[in-house]
């Protein structure tokens, strides 16, 4: 599904990603954990095509294609979805309008007929139930005046409607109370499928109690310094990020905090 090789990226002159290697196979859920400022959002944005970070070297293959050569919208239509850490408010653009335009852009790209208003609404309302969202949110502007939790739910609603092949969830758990977290996790879990891969970016291991990853990676200062199974998350929880230091992956684990 996704193969990242020795990816380097800078913001301005400042190198942020310093050689990321990661392979995600179809159906897998990978968690990327790391302290604030380690480059998690930068990696997510680079995959989605945001241009404020520049890729200086390395490659990203997505379904055997050069992902970095695709435009932002092409990536989306090909099934890449980024749930933003901070979803932006867009006053004046209707939530329902965006959902429909997004879905139909994707369908058109894939040679499918556009959905008519009735079928579309039925589909969206169905997904909204899953996210326990009030239908009135459809008729509001994108994220405008939404609480932090509503914004995150709205991201997962979009994901549920667009049914991506590769979903990148950037700190989808942050700012959620426990009830909202359960709803969001439930939505994400219902989207797990053999042909759908997910990368969950998170600072805390809390989300991983609800969405079980297949692999956990630790990102520190722009490098993946540890990779392992779900148990790695628990160790991190116990020992904190200081425990990782910035040693390269494979180095001996130092204990203490």
């Amino acid at each position, binding site marked *: 599904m996704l193969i990242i090789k020795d990816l380097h990226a800078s913001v301005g002159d400042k190198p942020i990603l310093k050689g990321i290697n990661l392979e995600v196979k179809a159906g897998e859920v990978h968690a990327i954990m790391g302290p604030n400022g380690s480059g998690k959002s930068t990696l997510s944005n680079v995959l*989605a*095509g*945001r241009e*404020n970070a520049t890729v200086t070297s390395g490659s990203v293959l997505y379904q055997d294609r050069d992902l970095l050569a695709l*435009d*932002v*919208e092409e*990536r*989306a*239509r090909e099934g890449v*979805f*980024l749930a*933003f850490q901070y*979803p*932006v408010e*867009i*006053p*004046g*653009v209707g939530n329902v309008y*965006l959902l429909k*335009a*997004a879905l139909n*852009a*994707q369908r058109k*790209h894939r040679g499918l007929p556009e959905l008519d208003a009735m079928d579309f609404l039925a589909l969206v309302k169905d997904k909204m139930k899953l996210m326990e969202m009030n239908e009135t949110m459809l008729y509001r*502007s*994108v994220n405008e005046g939404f609480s932090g939790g509503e914004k995150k739910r709205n991201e997962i609603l*979009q994901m549920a409607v*667009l049914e991506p092949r590769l979903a990148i969830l950037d700190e989808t758990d942050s700012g959620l109370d426990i009830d909202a977290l359960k709803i969001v996790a439930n939505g994400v879990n219902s989207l797990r499928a053999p042909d759908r891969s997910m990368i969950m970016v998170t600072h805390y291991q809390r989300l991983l109690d609800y969405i079980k990853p297949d692999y956990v990676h630790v990102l520190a200062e722009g490098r993946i310094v540890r990779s392992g199974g779900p148990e790695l998350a628990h160790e991190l929880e116990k020992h904190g990020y200081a425990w990782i230091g910035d040693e390269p992956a494979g180095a001996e684990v130092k204990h203490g905090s």
Partner: protein
Amino acid sequence: MSAVIQHYQSEFERAEPLLPWRDAKGWQAWRQSAWSRFAEQGFPSTRHEEWKYTSVAALEKLLLSCAPATPAPLDWASLKDKAVLPEARGRLVFVDGVFQPTLSRVDGLPAGLRMGALSGRSTQDSLKLQGLLEQGQRRTPFTALNAAFVAEGAWVAAEAGVRMEEPLLVLYVATEGQRAMHLANAYEAAEGSAFSVVEQYLGMTDEPYLVNGVTSATLDEGAKISHIKIQQEGARSYHIAALQAVQKRSSQFNSHSFALSGALGRNDIEAILAEPDAAVSMRGLYRVSRRELQDFHTTIRHDSPDCTSDECFKGVLNESGRAVFNGKIRVAPDAQHTLSQQSNHNLLLSDQAEVDTKPQLEIFADDVKCSHGATVGQLDEEQWFYLRSRGLAAEHARALLIEAFALDILTGIDLPVLRDALESLLRKTAHV
């Protein structure tokens, strides 16, 4: 005397015998003194503070014809698609400044609400009109020129307590170039009455012409007028207009301006809150591209206590388009408890576009709440990226964001038929 003044002097001598109300006492002298006022000043130059960023030098050189036109007949079918409210129950149509009774309809109006062409008003009424226009016509060289030549326009008068929700339409169509049209509109709302009027200006020629308008709105106690003005003028047109609203106690004046096209537009809009508890909402959208210029000079005079003003203008500037916003708020010494809000937001879509925005607050009372703010910015990258990351094409996402910025100006237009009409007009004209 300059060649320009000489030209308009001979136009005045030629046109004056043909202008309406000539027999009514006072009109000839009134026009004559207006003419002298203009002749003394001439067209304003950019040395004039109020015209600093807006040069009318090219207009001055045109030496336009000012005599009443004899336009070729138009049929309603050819206008219907362009009219913003084709089904309006009250409708006045003017072509090249000449009233077209066959294209107009005023028979479906409620009792106590009258609407018509100014030229059709009695000589006695015309003196009242003179009174209404008097104040406004002293404001700029253009209003003086208007007073000298004014021949036609629209009037609407609502008697006490008469309220009509459905908007009226006043449609001005320009078909012929090289012509100056001096128009006046008079809107009067008696105590407790209410109406909405949409003034739409349609340029159907690419030749240069001038629309020079003066509008007066008078609102008695508890009256409400909503005035919506739409400029869809021709590519080489000049549209210069002055509007003044005088508001009595507890009246509400809503002014919406949409300057959508035209080579040069200049609007001087003034609301005078003359008595307590009056409220004005002044909103506008200007959209410029190519080398167009739109200039809004607004004045809100808080002359009485407990009045409210809410002003918001937005601009979308493309290519080498330019805009000017000058918003003056004057709060008189005894206008305590004034509530005033002003904002001007501009979206610059090209490096060549330019906007000059200036709030001008003159506050002489102490117990007031006045706020103002202006912004000039580009499209929000983060919003643009968000939309594209959901699969929307770059151009589609961009158009959506521009539209969202612009449509926000419709806030306060609650009547669905009007809102829908304006919304679809703004969408339709977005890509010209």
